[in-house]
């Protein structure tokens, strides 16, 4: 015979059933890239578009940043958009002697909605409270590609 469910459990089940129907959005933001035209002439030129000046292509680069979201609250590792683009991507361009990276494309492959983060946190709290000690983790991956260039003028 089934035990009667508590009001909290019923509410949680209702929320779990309804939220996927309503839908949730995950929003990922990254810091600004280079302006066009880039009047400063300093730093590595970074753009999702083309080059503002004549250039030659030095090569192509793909960076995959991996990390984890722990308990739906803490992001650890290198799955941040800014770290991958402004850190690794710019460094790789500099290593090749490049002045910039153009046609940058990016994708956070498994961004979490607020609902998913809340669910992960609730599962972790529930697990810790019941003595199981299991902390929920979720893999995060950010993939960025671009074309490394050197200005010819």
């Amino acid at each position, binding site marked *: 015979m089934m035990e009667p469910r508590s009001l909290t459990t019923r509410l949680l089940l209702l929320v779990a059933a309804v939220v*996927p*129907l*309503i*839908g*949730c*959005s*995950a*929003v*990922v*933001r*990254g*810091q*600004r*890239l*280079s*302006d*066009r*035209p*880039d*009047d*400063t002439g*300093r*730093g*590595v030129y*970074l*753009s*999702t*578009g*083309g080059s503002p000046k004549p250039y030659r292509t030095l090569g192509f680069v793909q960076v995959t940043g991996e990390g984890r979201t722990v308990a739906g609250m803490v992001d650890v590792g290198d799955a941040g*958009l800014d770290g991958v*683009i*402004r850190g690794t991507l*710019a460094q790789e361009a500099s290593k090749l002697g490049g002045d910039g990276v153009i*046609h940058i*494309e*990016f*994708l*956070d492959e498994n*961004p979490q*909605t607020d609902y998913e983060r809340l669910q992960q946190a609730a599962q972790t709290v529930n697990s810790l409270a019941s003595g199981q000690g299991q902390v929920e983790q979720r893999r995060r991956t950010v993939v960025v590609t671009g074309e490394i260039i050197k200005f010819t003028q």
Partner: protein
Amino acid sequence: MSRDLVVAAAGLAALLTGCTAVNTAYVPTARDGRDPFITSGNIQEPYQSLGLLQVTRKGVIIFGAIDPAGTDLNAGFQEMLPRIRQMGGDGLINVRWNQTQYTALARVFSIFLLGMLPGEVTITGEVVRLRRPGEPARGPSL
């Protein structure tokens, strides 16, 4: 009898697998300042980069037809518009997009999954502000 059923099912499956899933989205393209413009390419005007933006909408599609969560291209782009404004942008450039699409056959077979299929749409792009005449340049981005 059973052979006829198999032939009928195979015929139906063959018909359905030939179907194409199509989704379109309508976005504002005028640069009159009323709505943010969205383009998959670059623009010729000078601009300031305000940052990168990715929006992912997730939900379930019921019986392959009812999408209460809005996980199609149109819903994704409509969600982008206010977020571009929130960042102070005039538009979104170099946009890329991806939406989960199901063929008619997959929609029919979704009945075995209680009529529910996962849906997801992702849109990425760079938020920009058009540079006004005489506006001074900013510092370097790095």
